[in-house]
């Protein structure tokens, strides 16, 4: 089987030498420009075109193909095509990115796992393209089908309710939705390919393909955000000490400002601050999400997720500033005691690592794939080739420690399938005049959930006695 696959592979090399030459030229261009000037998009289009030509060298649909009455083994044919993609499409892209990494002076050995993982994902991301080519008989039909998919996507967006369409997932767990939809789509594409090459039942394969794309899109659009937190918590195996969650009635800072969406939906935003005690020492906490369920004695209920607007840490204790948006009619009952239940999703960061590097206007490698340099106006800039690391990152300059961002992904994967995933963040350094800066990173140690159940709580207690009530 492998011998025949290699034979077909060599034939494809010869058949597609012109297209391959053009693609390699695009990859070379990419090494010069990076993703600038659309080179990344052009390279992707080139890869898709080459994939289409490759598969259509032995088209699957139809009854007049040369190869179907020759002793081709379908397994050999499929392996030959995948081998060509790995060697002639994936590897040149990998080489181009490796050259980019070297040119940008990233640490190559440390970057290799992320590069290899990204290349693997790129290969998987190509499977839906291969599947589309396998159910079309030529480049024109393939292009029209791709256009059809794009139009269907736009139409689906048009008919999908606004709230669903723009369900913004938190950066921390967005990877879960992406990974799930990506895995589903590529797994279905792989299944379709396997079946189509074996059976050549194009009509059924096309139906399966449309259902796969539709199913993956529905999953992507409708997956509830809570699923991300549940999965993230489930995946975290770390032991967490017992913590106590209680209403934080010490702030009582009044009503919270309404968001534009609150105004549009005629909702009122009230605080539901929480305090967590019993935190382990030496860790940093991030509150990821809070879900709240309110039940009044007369049976009236409300449930929803809370917005998070800050977190205050004290030794072994943190306070989470959260708020919920409730309808006006419920707001009239905020003085009535209710049962308040819910869940709080937290992440603990720790295991700090650091590296001191010279303060320079030229990028200097720090750690965890970060490369940092100074920018004008006291700005300090860090970037990472494969996306911002799943870490809290700080720059300590003299005695001043600045944070880059708390919006980090908890993805366990070192990279994604993007051709260009370079992510950059800024912070401000003080003006101590020191010649070095210490970059500190803290990794997520545990993701966990704590449920709470408070009886006889009135929302007015969170707001405070002096707070002005909004108009009815």
């Amino acid at each position, binding site marked *: 089987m492998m*011998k*025949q696959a290699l*034979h077909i592979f060599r*034939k494809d090399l*010869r*058949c597609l030498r012109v297209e391959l030459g053009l693609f390699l030229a695009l990859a070379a261009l990419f090494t010069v420009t990076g993703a600038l000037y659309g080179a990344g998009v052009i390279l992707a289009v080139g890869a898709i075109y080459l994939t289409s030509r490759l598969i259509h*060298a032995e088209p699957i649909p*139809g*009854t*007049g*193909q*040369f190869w*179907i*009455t*020759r*002793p*081709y*083994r379908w397994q050999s044919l499929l392996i030959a095509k995948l081998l060509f993609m790995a060697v002639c499409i994936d590897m040149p892209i990998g080489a181009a990115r490796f050259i980019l990494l070297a040119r940008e002076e990233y640490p190559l050995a440390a970057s290799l796992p992320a590069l290899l993982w990204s290349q693997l994902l790129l290969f998987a991301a190509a499977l839906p393209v291969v599947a589309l080519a396998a159910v079309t008989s030529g480049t024109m039909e393939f292009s029209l089908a791709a256009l059809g998919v794009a139009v269907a996507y736009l139409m689906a967006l048009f008919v999908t309710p606004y709230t669903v369409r723009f369900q913004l997932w938190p950066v921390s767990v967005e990877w879960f939705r992406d990974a799930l939809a990506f895995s589903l789509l590529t797994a279905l594409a792989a299944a379709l390919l396997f079946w189509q090459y074996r059976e050549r039942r194009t009509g059924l394969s096309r139906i399966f393909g449309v259902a796969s794309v539709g199913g993956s899109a529905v999953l992507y659009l409708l997956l509830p955000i809570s699923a991300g937190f549940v999965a993230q918590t489930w995946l975290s195996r770390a032991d967490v000490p017992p913590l106590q969650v209680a209403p934080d009635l010490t702030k009582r800072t009044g009503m919270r400002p309404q968001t534009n969406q609150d105004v549009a939906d005629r909702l009122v935003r009230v605080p539901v601050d929480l305090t967590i005690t019993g935190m382990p020492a030496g860790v940093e906490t991030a509150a990821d999400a809070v879900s709240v369920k309110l039940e009044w004695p007369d049976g009236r209920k409300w449930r929803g997720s809370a917005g998070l607007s800050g977190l205050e840490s004290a030794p072994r204790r943190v306070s989470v500033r959260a708020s919920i948006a409730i309808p006006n009619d419920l707001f009239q009952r905020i003085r009535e005691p209710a049962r308040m239940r819910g869940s709080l999703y937290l992440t603990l960061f720790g295991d700090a690592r650091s590296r001191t590097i010279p303060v320079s206007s030229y990028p200097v490698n720090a750690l965890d794939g970060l490369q940092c340099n100074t920018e004008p106006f006291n700005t300090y800039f860090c970037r990472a080739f494969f996306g911002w690391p799943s870490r809290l990152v700080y720059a300590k300059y003299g005695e001043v420690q600045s944070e880059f961002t708390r919006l980090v992904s908890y993805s366990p994967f070192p990279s994604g399938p993007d051709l260009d995933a370079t992510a950059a963040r800024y912070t401000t350094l003080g003006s101590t005049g020191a010649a070095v800066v210490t970059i500190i990173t803290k990794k997520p140690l545990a993701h966990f959930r704590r449920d709470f159940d408070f009886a006889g709580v009135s929302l007015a207690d969170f707001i405070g006695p002096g707070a002005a009530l909004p108009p009815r």
Partner: protein
Amino acid sequence: MIPNAIHCEDLSKSYGGVRAVDHLRLEVPAGAIYGLVGPNGAGKTTAIKMLMNIVRPDAGHATVLGCDSRQIGPEQFTRIGYVSENQHMPDWMTVGYLMSYLKPFYPRWDDARADELLRQFDLPLDRKLKNLSRGMWMKASLASSLAYRPDLLVLDEPFSGLDPLVREDLIQGILDSADETTILCSSHDLAEIETLASHIGYMERGILRFSEEMDTLTARFRVVEVTVGTAALMPGNGRWPARWTRPEIAPSLVRFVDSMYDAERTDLDIRELFEGVTGVAAHPMPLKAIFLTMARSASPKGGR
């Protein structure tokens, strides 16, 4: 008993409600050169595609070289050659590369035979298939299907649109392989099939009207001319034999086609039906005339 290379039982296929092949029962004996003839749209190509497992039958069953046609795959195709006017060849390949590319697929590939075929068909090794004339293209296709000495060669309208010289070359190439290969050749061109076939089947509107050995077929069809002394009259009261078709009456002469000709019996029947018979002459018919006779007999307006 010689086994059949191809055996079909009630093979049927419809496209959008139109029955392309209707309960086809076909047997191609091993070693035969079987000509499957019929007008365009008769269902010959669909039948062949079902035999080659290119399309799936709606009903029925077929075996090809002892293998269920639905199971025909790479292993069987090392022993089957398929040449079709509708096949898409890898046109970017040169003739030479086509042959060298295909060689590793076939355990029985014979280099000497391949060279011989290339010489015989006068094929330019360095020319791309897309730059070949239709005739040369068909020769390349045939050469690439004969070089591994297949047990079965299936040809779907191989002569369509070719000039006489090319046809002659192709026929010679096919005949040269006939000793070791069973051949099934479909065509709507009877003249070529006549020079080739040892067996013949006639398909029309998806139905195989008949299938038999060529010698038997040509032997049983005769144009019979009966000369009578007086003005000839058609015998009435259902006495006209069903095997006599296309009668023509002229003064003193009756002409018809006998589809089951037997000199003795035909002569006897003639003398029973006609008075004053002065002469009986039976002439062999070319295949084309036989088919025209059969086609007209089968049509609602045909026959007597």
